[in-house]
């Protein structure tokens, strides 16, 4: 079920009313309601894959108990942890990466002259959100292993933690220490939290429907027909893709966080205005925070993080980014994208500038940013946007051809929208969006932080009007990160 669908418009109020008016007396009943709703939410896409979630839930629930039970024996608890990791990676490996490995193996043989026909390629559907919920259940096993939490003995609570519908298919990837503890505790309706949830939902929908969906046809047109476009259009295409993927994914996260708030649950922030990052390290502290945090906690730090020699730290950074790239999809383009980010990150790390912006934002104490900050933001945006050519292209060959067409035959021509719409509308929209994001840059949880009620009301109305002005019934309204 998509957030931006009629079914969700009917689904959400129904579950909300049942949750607070019918099952509000008993937390167990509320959790059962969430599980059933989450399974309906997920099964709306394809009910067969519900079994995977249920299996993943049961396996990690049992393993969590086992790890805890054998806590005194590092060997045995490690054995159970490995089993959890293996199980989840096996799920991912089969559904997401199996064909990639077989294809790559065949290509490798072909490159040394062996033409192999593969009987091993399988027609496997990629279950929506598998990368998200497997990582979430793995985090539970890790946290139990590292004794950050005690395992729950309540299967219903654990199943709620795994399947909680607002963040089930595209995150934020929650750690058990944050989400499970909220699920096991009694929730009381809180007016301020609910209002802040509705505001985040509105902001998320604006980013998805107005920013991402309206420019999606332009990006699709340019990337699908890149051989027919001039260099200026290709640059435009990838710049717009930067906005599209940000609007799409951060929009989803905001709707998820807002929806969770309606049920009395706080999820972690996933995006903190990454377009205003002053270097690549800051970008990774602001983009898809839940995934970066996951990798830092469960991969980077266990490998020694930055508390080892410089050389080993650089190795760790490379591993993190390559794995992160591979997490996004079974394609060499994502691995290359990850590698490119490692290359961007390492100089920042070696200069010791990777944490300097962790606690402040652009224009921290001023109204306007300094020229230096602007130049840094601009440069970071260029680097990130350049890497997205690999993220968006279907293959490495297409990525390199796309780049080659930009520099080998640079020419300018005004781009014409595939549907004939005025391009000026989109340029104005993105300029206003960027200015607005700058105004609210200090608090990603409160996108309407204006004192005047009248101003806030006008902004709400303008955003909904924007949704109408840029509504396009022909756009594929699915979220980009569902494929991961």
């Amino acid at each position, binding site marked *: 079920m998509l957030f931006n669908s*009629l079914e969700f418009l009917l689904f959400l109020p129904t579950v909300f009313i049942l949750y607070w008016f019918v099952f509000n007396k008993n937390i167990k009943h509320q959790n059962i309601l969430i599980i059933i709703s989450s399974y309906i939410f997920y099964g709306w896409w394809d009910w067969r894959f519900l079994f995977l979630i249920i299996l993943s839930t049961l396996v990690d629930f049992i393993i969590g108990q086992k790890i805890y039970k054998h806590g005194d024996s590092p060997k045995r608890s490690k054995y159970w942890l490995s089993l959890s990791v293996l199980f989840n990676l096996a799920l991912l490996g089969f559904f997401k990466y199996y064909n990639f490995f077989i294809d790559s193996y065949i290509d490798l043989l072909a490159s040394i002259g062996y033409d192999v026909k593969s009987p091993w390629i399988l027609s496997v559907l990629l279950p929506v959100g598998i990368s998200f919920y497997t990582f979430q259940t793995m985090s539970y096993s890790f946290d139990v292993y590292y004794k950050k939490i005690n395992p729950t003995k309540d299967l219903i609570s654990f199943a709620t933690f795994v399947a909680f519908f607002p963040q089930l298919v595209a995150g934020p990837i929650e750690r058990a220490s944050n989400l499970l503890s909220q699920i096991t505790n009694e929730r009381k309706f809180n007016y301020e939290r609910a209002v802040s949830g509705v505001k985040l939902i509105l902001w998320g929908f604006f980013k998805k429907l107005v920013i991402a969906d309206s420019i999606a046809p332009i990006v699709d047109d340019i990337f699908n027909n890149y051989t027919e476009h001039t260099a200026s259009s290709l640059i435009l295409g990838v710049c717009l893709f930067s906005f599209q993927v940000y609007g799409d994914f951060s929009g989803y996260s905001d709707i998820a966080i807002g929806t969770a708030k309606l049920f009395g649950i706080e999820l972690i922030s996933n995006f903190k205005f990454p377009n205003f990052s002053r270097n690549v390290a800051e970008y990774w502290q602001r983009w898809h925070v839940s995934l970066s945090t996951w990798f830092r906690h469960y991969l980077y730090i266990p490998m020694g993080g930055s508390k080892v020699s410089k050389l080993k730290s650089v190795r760790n950074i490379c591993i993190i980014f390559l794995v992160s790239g591979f997490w996004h999809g079974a394609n060499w383009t994502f691995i290359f994208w990850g590698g490119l980010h490692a290359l961007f990150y390492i100089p920042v790390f070696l200069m010791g500038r990777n944490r300097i912006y962790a606690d402040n934002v652009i224009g921290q104490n001023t109204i306007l940013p300094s020229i230096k900050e602007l130049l840094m933001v601009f440069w970071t945006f260029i680097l990130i946007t350049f890497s997205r050519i690999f993220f968006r292209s279907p293959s490495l060959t297409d990525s390199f051809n796309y780049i080659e067409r930009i520099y080998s035959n640079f020419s300018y021509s005004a781009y014409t929208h595939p549907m004939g719409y005025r391009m000026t509308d989109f340029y104005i929209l993105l300029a206003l969006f960027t200015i607005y994001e700058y105004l609210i840059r200090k608090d990603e949880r409160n996108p309407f932080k204006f004192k005047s009620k009248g101003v806030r009301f006008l902004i709400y109305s303008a955003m*909904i009007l924007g949704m109408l002005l840029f509504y396009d019934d022909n756009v594929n309204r699915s979220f980009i990160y569902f494929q991961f």
Partner: protein
Amino acid sequence: MKKFLGKTALYLFLILLMLELAVRAFHLYTVDPPRYIDDHGVEKRVPHHNGYSVTGNRKQNFSEFNINKSGFNSHREFNPSASKYEIAIVGDSYIEGFHQDYQNSIGQKIEEKIEDIEVYQYGYAGYDFANQMHLVYAYQDTFDLIDEIILYLNYENDLERDRYTPNTNRIKMLSSTLFKIRDQIKLLSYGSKIGVLEPFKKLATGQNPFKTDVTAYQSNEIKEETKAEKLERDKRYIANFQNLIKLYGFNKSKTTLLLDTRRTSNVFLDFCDQNNIKYIDFSESFKKSKKSTNLIYDMHWNDHGRELIAEVIASYIRNKKKD
């Protein structure tokens, strides 16, 4: 909780009110002048309505219309007489011309090209050939006084019927309270036009409102017609055409078809030639044009396209007058 639900409802109401004001202030909505079926059974607009027709979410096209005494969008009233030279152009939305200011219509352009001529545009969105033939038949007294009749034939769509029957259900539906409310609340009118209300419409009419993208895209696939299917279709269309002539008459001396031969079957064109049915072909003029002839948001003719159409019709009339 009560406060939350109450305030949510209040805000929702105020926002809707604000949107209604914005839609009115920026005239984002389109006005669809009321329709009716007259005593002759002809479906048309209720006379004497003025307003603006809008295309697209962001007012990509904005033009004024004027429904005259006869119930058609035109820069003039239709008062044919034996002493004047008049031509009637009958057709669908391309002739109705809600995508242009009524002062800049094909009729107006023809009148600017030929002196002492009056052009009557009997255009109505959705007219097929059956509608057109019936109209000429129903208003026989008027058309007897008109010197030239041009019927716009979009071959691919217009010959599906072999007789005209008035669509009373549609008119009833459009004049129902629900639609009257929609027309009064401009936000609804706008939402309906841009497709936002589509799922709700489906829900209300018992259709499946839950669109899956896969199905939606599959349904857009273009299916290539086989030769046999094309032939079958041509046969059916020609039979329908013949039946319409039989029912409503066809004055060959002053009736001409306006068509695009690129989109018209050769079988049908041969049929016209064999039966002395004249047609004006505007395909050459469109092909030669270096500028686009259609609007960018839909396939209706833009100002340049209308200029070319006016030119081919004017040229035809000039030649005919010479003869």
